């Protein structure tokens, strides 16, 4: 049987959040009452002309830099000609001949656990279309969205699976929404849209076979499923001796399959030519360098650094990469602490996120120093697990530093190793029958002894230490 591999490229449209639209000074709020934020320019009135928004350019350059792309100091605006009811001018202003950004890259982790760079062919600026709504036989047009700034990020066909595509899409989402803050990131409202081009070939081959385009796979919930389904569909066709047809398909989330949207008859001819109303866009190297200094640390670099600096696990890494604010909190806690990074990471990602919303982590009420101080108490065994949880709750309630809480509350003064050993010995001595059974092979009785001992210690002993000492005491009796 032939083994196949998939060839996948993604085209991602990122709607850029700016004060104004791309080519006019209308407000960029598409949720205003229908056709409120419109003017002659974005409705394509005769005689109106586009004027490029500087803010849009700056944001596009920052996205290029964040995606490791080359920023072209001279790029072109071009007209893409096609008729569509939601296109005010029946052409779209885009960047076809020379985009603002070329040849970027992002890392994904393959099924084998190895990181691979996915090439980004081009990053270009363009304008959004109006939005149509169907009302019975009628189509209503809302031009609030017409002319909003969009950036399209086109990958090379370097992705190999639905899972990799999902990772890549998520990473672009994180960069645009969470790291650069240039996109609202509302998927239901189409702030990020993703189309996938998919073909298959025998594993190891370099052929590029007929591809299908799966539209609107812009959901983290189903992007991987939709792509994997399409790969399997194509394999089934080829296995049955058929040929994959060039077409545009849509994912049906109910039936969990892709369906034909339209067949592609020949290539569309968009008759691109330079937009004479704008002329080429020229920016300076200084402008680009200035914007580079405004970039935050980006996911790939951050992951490498966190892994090396803190040695935390992958799950925690994913969390910190996906939620920069949580990560910043963790790093602040770590910088002030003499506690171990793993304890701080565990408490930040665990207990703290059970009570704080990671999506909205800005105004967290617990200072990172308090988590650090709690971690220190745990690391130095001054408190045990259940006590730490109690202290955490008190800390949340009172806003006090855990060190203070412990100092002022005798319940949290842990007993020392000698006292722990004495309790262990006493408990074993008090239960000769159980001791005999234990020594006879009923090793699960250990829990019973530890439980009794902890009760006697009023919870102030370290359970692990207690367990160790009880076991030692019992083993000693064997002799």
């Amino acid at each position: 049987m032939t083994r196949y591999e998939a060839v996948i490229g993604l085209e991602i449209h990122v709607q850029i959040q700016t004060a104004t639209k791309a080519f006019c000074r209308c407000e960029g709020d598409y949720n205003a009452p229908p056709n409120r934020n419109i003017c002659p320019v974005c409705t394509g009135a005769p005689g109106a002309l586009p004027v490029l928004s500087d803010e849009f350019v700056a944001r596009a350059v920052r996205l290029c830099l964040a995606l490791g792309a080359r920023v072209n100091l001279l790029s072109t605006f071009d007209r893409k000609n096609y008729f569509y009811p939601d296109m005010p001018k029946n052409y779209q202003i885009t960047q076809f001949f020379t985009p603002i950004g070329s040849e970027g890259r992002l890392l994904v982790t393959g099924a084998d656990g190895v990181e691979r760079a996915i090439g980004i062919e081009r990053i270009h600026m363009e304008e959004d279309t109006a939005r149509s709504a169907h009302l019975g036989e009628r189509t209503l047009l809302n031009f609030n969205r017409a002319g909003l700034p969009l950036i399209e990020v086109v990958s090379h066909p370097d992705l190999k699976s639905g899972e990799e595509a999902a990772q890549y899409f998520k990473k672009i989402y994180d960069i645009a929404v969470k790291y650069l803050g240039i996109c609202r990131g509302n998927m239901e409202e189409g702030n990020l849209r993703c189309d996938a081009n998919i073909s298959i070939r025998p594993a190891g081959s370099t052929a590029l076979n007929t591809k299908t385009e799966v539209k609107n796979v812009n959901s983290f919930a189903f992007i991987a499923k939709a792509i994997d389904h399409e790969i399997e569909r194509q394999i089934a066709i080829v296995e049955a001796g058929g040929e994959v047809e060039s077409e545009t398909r849509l994912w049906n989330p109910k039936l969990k399959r892709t369906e034909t949207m339209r067949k592609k008859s020949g290539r569309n001819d968009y008759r691109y030519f330079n937009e004479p109303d704008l002329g080429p866009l020229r920016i300076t190297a200084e402008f680009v360098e200035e914007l580079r200094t405004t970039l935050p640390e980006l996911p790939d670099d951050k992951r490498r650094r966190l892994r090396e600096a803190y040695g935390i696990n992958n799950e925690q890494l994913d969390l910190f990469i996906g939620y920069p604010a949580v990560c910043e909190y963790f790093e602040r806690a770590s910088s002030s602490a003499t506690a171990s990074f793993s304890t701080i990471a565990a408490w930040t990602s665990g207990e703290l996120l059970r009570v704080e919303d990671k999506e909205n982590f800005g105004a967290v009420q617990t200072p990172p120093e308090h988590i650090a101080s709690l971690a220190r108490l745990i690391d130095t065994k001054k408190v045990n697990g259940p006590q730490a949880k109690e202290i955490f709750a008190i800390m949340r309630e009172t806003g006090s530093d855990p060190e203070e809480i412990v100092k002022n509350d005798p319940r949290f003064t842990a007993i020392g190793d000698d006292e722990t050993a004495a309790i262990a010995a006493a408990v074993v001595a008090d239960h000769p029958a159980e001791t005999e059974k234990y020594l006879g092979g009923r090793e699960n009785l250990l829990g019973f002894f530890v439980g009794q001992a902890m009760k006697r210690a009023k919870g102030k002993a370290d359970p692990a230490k207690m367990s160790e000492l009880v076991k030692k005491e019992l083993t000693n009796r064997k002799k």
Partner: protein
Amino acid sequence: METLGVKDIYGNIAAHNGALNAYLQVVPEERLKPGAGPLSGVCLGVKDNIAVAGLQLTCGSKLLETYVAPYTATVVERLVAAGATVTGKLNLDEFAMGSATTYSAYGDTKNPWDEERTPGGSSGGSAAAVAAKMCDIALGSDTGGSVRQPASYCGIYGYKPTYGTLSRYGLTAFASSLDQIGILARRPGHIRELMQVAAGRDGRDATSIEAPSFDAQAFDPAKMRIGVIAEYEKNMGPAVRPAYDRCIETLKKAGATIVPLSFPEYDTVISVYQVIATAEASANLARFDGIRYTARAEGCSFRETTAASRGRWFGAEVKRRILLGTWVLSRAYYDSYYLRAAKVRTVILNRWKEFFGKVDMVLTPATAGTAFKRAEQPDTFALYLEDLFTIPANLTGMPAIAFPAGTHDRLPVGLQLTADLSRDGLLLDAAAWLEKNVMGFATIERGCRHDAI
């Protein structure tokens, strides 16, 4: 500016517009809002492809028959702010595509010098209205000569500024990289006064530029080097030749140096222009799809409605150019037509830049002959040749002015001066000198038959 006065202008409109069909829409006299400022009292006619809020904007097309402009063009806005008053909208070839105003969906405009003849085009309504004193001054648009050729046929001045000097915001685009709003006037001084107010950078037009000075400078022909182009002299008709020779004689006598130039690419200008202009037009006119504008031929789908509306309401010339433009941009022909035309355009620009290393201005005819009879309109391709002398200024973006230089058979003859980029002031200085020394104001006034009425 010495103005004609609202009363006389409305008298002339009442007397002549029925015959000439220059105005498509006249603002009723009682609704005129007199303005204050340097242009106070100036009655401004506006070509009907330039937006004036509240007035119609038909572009000479059936497709926009009931469309009313929702905003005002920057140039009009600035002129009105300086006191000018808009008297109405002037006839044109549909979407400014034509050279005789015969392609208007609202009937021909007639030449005030001879109603059997064309006023030229596409700003024929503007030229006729100015010549027949139905306004003080008019705005036109010039993509390949659409201001200068009708000005020349009607015995007035027609000026196309350096590309970008007048904002295009509000001018319905025909070919965006060639279009400029131009001015038609009876006196060159009027043009200067308008430019002092209207020119300059506009935040709503990314291609607009800072304006050069339009203050009058002393014009000394003895310091001028005037270029003449051998290839153009060969293509000049017999009606134009005497006026051309006389103009050169006058300049020479005044001490100007006449410098012969060669423009070997002259015979490519029509093709280059037709490819670029139609390509841009095919996109610019795509918005008129029968969905957003008034006339809609009903079809079952968007595609059908669009095709039916465009098929029904666009005129034959507009369709011809859209088809041509669509074709030259198509993937299979882009390189051999559009891209090649763009390259030749650069060659032509470099040639003219080279000219202005040697001379201050270039003198050519504005048209090959005088206004032809409307009944004897040349065929489509012969009509395209009308623009031979005027197109280079559009391809290069350079300023040019057509000026009356004589008459032939009781019809005006126009010549043209072209200058280097942003040397518009020099052109107007020269035109003022020519007005005094080549063809006086009074002579033109007598020639225009309608003026005698």
